[in-house]
């Protein structure tokens, strides 16, 4: 386990370093570089040159990267001149909200997808399996923003069941009006269920084909007992890694959802920053979201290794991923 942890953590560190390099490259990909990012699109070459000289942006790129990286590590993500705030403090306000929205939605998606996938595997190739597959396929293939707006149209505008806008203000405001969270959470959950239930379905199908299932059945164990006591336990541990791997997918869905419901998380933040060409904020969001994804999938892998000792045994290579 220790060897697994060391190996997996050092891998994650390398990935984090590479994420930071990618962001740094993006920063310099901007026409005019970081100076343009800060001074805005109307800056003249002279002011950019002056700014570069003042801020050490004319030194060699590796030196600049080192300065930038040490700054990032000490919490300095740059300054948003559009919002007139340090990027880190903007992110500190927004990030918990996105984590909350994504977290609840993922939890719900798992709670729904596991029984659905299990049911589909047991009823494999029958009518109900096909019906569920079709529904999840269609849900998955529908643009998330359309799902969101259809939900608003039916549940908010016609039936007046839930508000169409997410709660605004501080983090605690989210709990003040839980009904306003229903539609955003439902949107992300609906588009995520398809992916999860299909994975659970094939994972359970794999397990059902194993010898131990036939063994348990031939010794007289009922289908329900075999499913719940043996199959589910084995089929669910890979789902933990799926959670880690699907994080970027979920965050992309969260971005759209936040935009539709005006939910003040990092997705809406990067969207607004894009409209105002606020590059420091955009890159700050990308950096933090990337880092969160790396850490998330690291945690998922560790949990997987705890649940399934075989993963720990295969320390070597990426067999456990």
């Amino acid at each position: 386990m220790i060897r697994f942890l060391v190996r997996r953590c050092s891998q994650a560190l390398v990935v984090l370093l590479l994420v930071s390099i990618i962001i740094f490259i993006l920063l310099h990909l901007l026409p005019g570089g970081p100076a343009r990012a800060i001074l805005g699109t109307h800056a003249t070459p002279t002011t950019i040159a002056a700014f570069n000289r003042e801020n050490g942006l004319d030194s060699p790129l590796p030196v600049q990267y080192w300065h930038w990286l040490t700054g990032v590590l000490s919490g300095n993500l740059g300054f948003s001149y559009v919002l007139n705030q340090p990027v880190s403090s903007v992110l500190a306000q927004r990030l918990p909200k996105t984590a909350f929205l994504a977290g609840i939605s993922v939890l719900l998606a798992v709670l729904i997808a596991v029984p659905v996938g299990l049911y589909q595997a047991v009823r494999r190739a029958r009518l109900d399996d096909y019906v569920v597959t079709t529904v999840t396929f269609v849900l998955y293939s529908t643009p998330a923003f359309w799902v969101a707006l259809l939900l608003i149209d039916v549940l908010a505008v016609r039936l007046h069941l839930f508000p169409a806008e997410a709660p605004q203000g501080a983090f605690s405001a989210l709990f003040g009006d839980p009904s306003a969270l229903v539609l955003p959470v439902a949107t992300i959950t609906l588009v995520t269920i398809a992916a999860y239930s299909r994975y659970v379905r094939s994972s359970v199908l794999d397990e059902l084909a194993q010898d131990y299932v036939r063994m348990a059945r031939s010794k007289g164990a009922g289908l329900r007992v075999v499913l719940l006591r043996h199959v589910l336990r084995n089929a669910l541990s890979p789902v933990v890694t799926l959670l880690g791997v699907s994080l970027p997918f979920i965050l992309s869905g969260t971005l759209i959802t936040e935009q539709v419901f005006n939910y003040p998380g990092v997705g809406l933040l990067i969207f607004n920053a894009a409209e105002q060409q606020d590059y420091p904020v955009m890159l700050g969001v990308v950096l933090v979201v990337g880092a969160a994804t790396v850490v998330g999938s690291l945690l998922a892998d560790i949990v997987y290794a705890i649940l399934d000792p075989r993963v720990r045994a295969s320390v070597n290579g990426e067999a456990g991923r």
Partner: protein
Amino acid sequence: MSLENMTAALGGADHPGADGPVPAEAPGRVRLRAFADNRLAVAGLAVVIALTLFAFIGPLLYHTDQVHTRLAAETLRPGPGHPLGTDNVGYDQLGRLMVGGQTTLEVAFGAAAVAVLLGVVWGATAGYLGGFADGLMMRVVDALLAIPALFLLIFLATVFKPSVLMLIIVVGVTAWLVPARLVRGEALSLRNREYVQAARTMGVRPPTIIFRHIVTNSIGTILVNATFQVADAILLVAALSFLGLGISPPATNWGAMLSDGLNYTYSGYWWLTYPPGIAIVLTVVAFNLIGDGLRDAFGLDTRRG
């Protein structure tokens, strides 16, 4: 990233595709028959062909002006002259659906091609080289995978003004990671095969081995993933259009038509949203069905679906 890609990312290193049973005779024909036996996959293929004909041949038979706006004829209900009505600036909606379909399909196919090409070259090279180079190349893939596609796309779309070509490149550049992982997994197992070792002993240069042996033997995986990439790209471009970062008018795509139409939901202008929306869902479902069918025909791991 699609659900197919998502689960594919899990099995990249050790899926059994390359070690599967090798058909004794005419593998191409066996696979064709297996694909043809899959009714859903054939239906998917039919839908794709029909929609492609609709978008590219349709305008030759059904002439509409998709350049000049006619505000006097805006949001007309479906009726004679305009089978699907007109949109908010007076374009004939049926004709618009064809023009939008062209862009949608061009970008989707183009982006999938870019993604698969990049991914195949990167993954096959990493897997063939192995060792430190492989480790480093795959960590780069991990790092890029960690950044959610839409976040990266928003940034790129802000920096580079979107056009059809730019969208193809930008979406392709964010989507090559999963094919890279899959092909790398194939390459890892293929590099130890006797014929690859024989080729190496005979002094065949690595690039030749990679393309002649590794890539050709991973063609099933590549083809299946390419299909899912097309479906993915359609949804990504739709999301970008919704965020206002798509192609600017008078060019359009189904995603842009859908998101423009959604502004009129409360006016009850259903013909502005349902036709492009259904076109998107149909196409994405169709490509996913084709991908499933191809995967079965090539006998690849079912876990990846």
